[in-house]
């Protein structure tokens, strides 16, 4: 168990925010988190971002965010781990506060995806792959999801329609989340007929990119208890890596980094997978949801999809996932996504999840995955008792 607790959270709606700049996006989430924590004493800022240098011609987000949020002077920097940047930034804040060298840290995940159009966003997303041996062949991030899904279908004998339950669940939950990018319900029958993006991945298999920002403020637990009524404790926190390129993985269909980070986080928390009440996983593609459930120990190899078929991932199921819509329906703002996941688990544990609430949730897990398995960040949060 760490000595770190969450005292403030904030998030913007994930959408195409044409009228909002990168800095404003970050500020809106930070403003909400500062209000929530009743403080503006921030000692360090960790910015989770993947693509601002390419999409907004803006690097050095640490100084930009600190300046624009009225936090000039604070220690601040960007943390990048492709689409796991947000989770990785959260991890740095936990380390900093746990070390005792930083009293209060702010994590802000921000991604501004709509300042470029067309294939420049696809190209930027692809920089998370191996530039010399994957992207140079025209492979894209979506293409990696498709290579995984095709192999999964072949090896485990499942069809495209068998993945539908993940997206149907995500959209059902997103429909109840006012901050979700998509709030329409999805019919399973329509799933397999959706237009292909990268065969066999279709439009309903993959999470939509959008602009968004989310923020979390953490401090030492003993201070947290005095500052806010319902601090949420960071019970476990871990990052692990695997080979960057998909073709180098020991087992293509096993998210080794995800497994390792879950095991480390559970060990730190003194818990087992059975103790987890909800799991915000990285459902960038339906196959990634299946693989994450398997790697975390909720399903045997090749059987993760069955949890979707059997409704075990629903709010009243054995292991609810994507409880606010997940990447699929809440939206996937790249390097900000991992911070959304933390905010959402914290809301579940505070009992402030509104229509998305999991009754009696006490322990929640968030997992942010970079480049389809090259990095995995797992955080376990629990109600402070």
């Amino acid at each position, binding site marked *: 168990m760490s000595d770190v607790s969450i005292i403030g959270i904030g998030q913007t709606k994930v959408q195409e925010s044409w009228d909002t700049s990168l800095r404003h996006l970050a500020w809106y989430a930070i403003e909400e988190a500062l209000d929530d924590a009743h403080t503006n004493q921030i000692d360090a800022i960790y910015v989770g971002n993947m693509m601002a240098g390419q999409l907004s011609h803006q690097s050095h987000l640490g100084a930009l965010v600190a300046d624009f949020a009225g936090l000039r002077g604070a220690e601040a920097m960007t943390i990048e781990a492709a689409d796991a940047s947000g989770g990785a930034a959260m991890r740095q804040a936990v380390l900093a506060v746990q070390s005792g060298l930083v009293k209060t840290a702010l994590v802000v995940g921000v991604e501004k995806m709509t300042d470029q159009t067309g294939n420049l966003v696809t190209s930027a997303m692809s920089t998370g792959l191996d530039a010399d041996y994957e992207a*140079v062949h025209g492979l894209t991030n979506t293409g990696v999801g498709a*290579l995984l899904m095709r192999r999964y279908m072949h090896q485990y004998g499942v069809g495209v329609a068998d993945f539908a339950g993940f997206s149907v669940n995500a959209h059902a939950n997103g429909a109840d989340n006012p901050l979700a990018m998509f709030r329409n319900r999805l019919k399973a029958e329509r799933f397999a007929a959706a237009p*292909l993006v*990268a065969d066999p991945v279709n439009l309903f298999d993959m999470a939509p990119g959008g602009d968004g920002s989310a923020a979390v403020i953490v401090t030492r637990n003993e201070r947290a208890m005095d500052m806010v009524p319902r601090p949420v404790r960071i019970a476990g926190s871990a990052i692990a890596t695997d*080979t960057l390129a998909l*073709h180098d993985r020991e087992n293509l269909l096993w998210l080794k980094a995800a497994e390792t980070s879950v095991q480390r986080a559970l060990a730190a928390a003194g818990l087992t997978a059975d103790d987890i009440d909800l799991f915000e996983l990285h459902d960038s593609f339906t196959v990634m949801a299946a693989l994450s459930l398997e790697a975390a120990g909720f399903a045997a190899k090749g059987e993760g999809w069955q949890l979707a078929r059997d409704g075990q991932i629903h709010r009243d199921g054995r292991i609810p996932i994507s409880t606010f819509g997940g990447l699929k329906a809440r939206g996937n703002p790249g390097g900000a996504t991992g911070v959304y996941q933390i905010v959402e688990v914290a809301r579940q544990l505070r009992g402030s999840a509104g229509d998305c609430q999991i009754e009696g949730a006490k322990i929640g897990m968030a997992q942010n995955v970079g480049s389809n398995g090259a990095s995995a960040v797992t955080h376990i949060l629990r109600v402070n008792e």
Partner: protein
Amino acid sequence: MEVSRHWRLNEQRYRLVGETCDSCGTKLFPPRDVCLECAAPAKELYTFTGTGEVFSYTTIYDAPAGFEQNAPYTVALVKLEEGPLVTAQLTDMAKDEIHIGMPVEMVTRKLSTDGPEGMIVYGYKFRPAVVAAL
């Protein structure tokens, strides 16, 4: 233009030159100097035969910059005869004949172009294997 970035990989792009592990004999492509299996040094060069089979594949419709004119195109994971998987485009075949397990062989083709005036990047792709006469 990123000339040196591509030029320094000519041996890999044109001839599939990888490495072999001194300790356990594992063949590595791409070369990485350290064995993926046993972590021993693996710096001895090894030229792959260029034959293998399709392990997984996808057709890309939403192409990144430099690949627009080729879209849709098919990218595969090819399991080389010597063991490693390699990421490459499939070429010289109809989409409906592609399947997992299909025997393929390496050829050199144009990978991408950087506009009408820009650099052309060449490298390996895989086509259906020409079955050797018995």
